[in-house]
């Protein structure tokens, strides 16, 4: 009896199996669609980013100077370029200087940006309009022009900064040389960079603040929360994703900044004692026409920025999960 009944379940199983298989294929096809859709993008990125990156990595393992440039091919030296950089005390000093410089710049940018954004929420509409137009004007100023204006303002002989400080009796700033020490040079660069970065941060955070629900704040206030408490427990958590992105971007920008320090300090005042990472790269790679070593420095910079960003992103994500 049992024998007669077996075909039915068997057929059923086959039916089920084929249906399952069909479903599997359908599911695979469906899940493959997104991958298929991003293939063109991946191919293009691989071509315009991956290919140069491949050459950069290859160049970094070669001796490639002026001689090799004329011969059109370098000679492979393995990791000698990396070894020479990692044994170069200038590299380590530059790295430390750049990390401190980045930390100061990013902190100043974020804190001031947030303060301006909070101010923008509080002020009346006309004042907000004036403030935000001012910010947009700063934003639209080309970097090179901004550098030139800063350079004139801090001029040794005729700079308006020296004139004003003297007139305001802050001290005798006549013929004060703002470029006399590395600290002073990099402080000026910091002012210039933070000034230029504020509009983007402030306006983005202002847009983020618009997402903070009014009733939530009111409810907290009814419950007796002080302004600082509201800020810490409501505003900041809601802004967290924006803060995260802005900070990461600022780290990447400020770590690799070149135009401001190079132009404001000026080529003739650049020396190993005031290098920032990008300036070090430019001087070693291009000025000395040692392209292999330059490529190795670029790769190291890439890795450092990636490491800095990863640490920060992971920490922020963990905080998010814990809450």
């Amino acid at each position: 009896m049992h024998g007669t009944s077996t075909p039915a379940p068997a057929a059923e199983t086959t039916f089920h199996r084929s249906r399952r298989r069909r479903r599997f294929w359908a599911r695979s096809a469906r899940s493959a669609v997104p991958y298929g859709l991003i293939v063109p993008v991946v191919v293009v990125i691989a071509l315009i980013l991956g290919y140069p990156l491949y050459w950069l990595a290859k160049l970094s393992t070669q001796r490639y100077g002026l001689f090799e440039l004329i011969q059109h091919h370098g000679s492979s030296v393995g990791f000698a370029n990396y070894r020479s950089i990692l044994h170069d005390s200038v590299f380590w000093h530059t790295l430390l200087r750049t990390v401190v410089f980045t930390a100061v710049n990013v902190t100043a940018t974020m804190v001031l940006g947030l303060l301006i954004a909070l101010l923008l929420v509080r002020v009346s509409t006309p004042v907000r309009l004036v403030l935000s137009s001012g910010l947009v004007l700063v934003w639209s100023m080309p970097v090179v022009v901004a550098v030139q204006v800063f350079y004139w303002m801090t001029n040794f002989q005729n700079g308006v900064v020296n004139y004003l400080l003297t007139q305001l009796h802050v001290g005798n700033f006549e013929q004060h040389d703002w470029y006399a020490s590395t600290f002073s040079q990099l402080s000026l660069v910091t002012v210039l960079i933070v000034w230029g970065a504020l509009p983007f941060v402030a306006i983005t955070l202002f847009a983020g603040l618009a997402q903070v629900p009014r009733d939530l704040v009111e409810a907290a206030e009814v419950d007796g929360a002080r302004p600082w408490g509201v800020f810490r427990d409501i505003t900041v958590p809601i802004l967290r994703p924006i803060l995260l992105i802005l900070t990461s971007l600022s780290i990447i920008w400020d770590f690799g900044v070149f135009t401001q320090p190079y132009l404001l300090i000026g080529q003739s005042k650049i020396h190993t004692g005031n290098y920032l990472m990008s300036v070090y790269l430019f001087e070693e790679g291009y000025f000395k026409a040692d392209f292999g070593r330059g490529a190795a420095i670029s790769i190291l910079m890439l890795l450092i920025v990636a490491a800095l960003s990863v640490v920060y992103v992971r920490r922020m994500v963990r905080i998010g999960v814990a809450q």
Partner: protein
Amino acid sequence: MKRRVIVALGLVVVLAVASTAATSAATKRTAANSITVWLQTDAQSGWADVVAAANQQFQAANPGTSVNVQYQSWGDHLQKFDATLAGGGGPDVIEMGNTEMTKYMAAGAFAPLDKTQFDNSSNWLPGLAASGKYGGKTYGVPYYAGSRVVTYRKDLFKQAGITKLPATTAQYVADAKKLLAKNKQKGFSPVYLAGTDWYVAMGFVFDYGGSIATQVSHKWTGMLDSPKSIAGLTAWKNFFLAASRASKTTDETHPNPYDVYAQGQAASMVGPSWFIGSVGKKYTASTGQFVMPGHVKGQTMPGFLGGSDLAVPVTSSNKALAADWIKDFTDTQSEKALQAKGNIPNATSLLSNSVNERAAARSWFVPTAKHWVDVENGNILRNMLAQILTGKLSVKQAAQSASDNIASVLNQP
């Protein structure tokens, strides 16, 4: 939408590659009947007629060959040149600053030239001829030179009671004090001298018998910390502090000394002889020049002999024609025309007695090392001078550290 952007991007890349390919193909095709010459803009603004005359002469001897002169600027011509070495389409003749030559000669960027082909080659200015020689071969033909002199305000000197031009550095300092007593405005310099103008500072070093670096059996040794060099640097420091109110950390182009002078803020300035043409209308009549005195009476301060060479890149496909053009552009007639424009001609046999030529009689030049240009670009000398003037380091400490730095840069493989 994104796809379209991608397609557009792809097209741009393809077009860019295609157009580059097209340009290089075009360059090759026209190469046979034209040569490309890179000169600095100084020639364009100063002596375009001399260039035109040389072109005419060249074309008379080589009918059907045109000369394409492209003017370059000092700031970026080497980066452009590097790019053409890698990618092609470069010049057949290039003007190089005399301190820029060695690195390129050592890398094999230039074709060797037959010295005897050129006029006056046995009397070439020694300093300039040396900058175009490497490993016993000639790669650069001296083009012209320029020396550094003092440009001064005759009226202010007279006002301060200076009747005779200074014959020693010490007298010049004494005169500077007199000038300062008569001109009390803020920031006024009796002798405007930028803090990190190493061309002037090294003149003091050489005046006291010092030097920058010396080579003994293929190894460079820094010489700035030698007692004679330190004496020179100390003399320069004292001179600066007594005579100049310029920034101690600025170079000789920020601001331009002649701009400070034209604003009435300087009684004199040390710099290239052509400064006299840039002092502004107001002071043209009252401006004169003299040779910077040395610390020993009767001897002038050794001046940096700046100058240019002409070279033929190895990438040129018309090396013989290129050499012919150089021959025409540096023959006696062209050099005399350059001299008439206020330059120093390329041969001692052509010298007369102008103030810049007298200054060139005692001159110094940078070490002819492959990596010298890295010392310049790394601002090792400028940084040392700033450290000395701002008092951050003593003369001895700053010289010691610069000397070590220079040796390590010059001894790179």
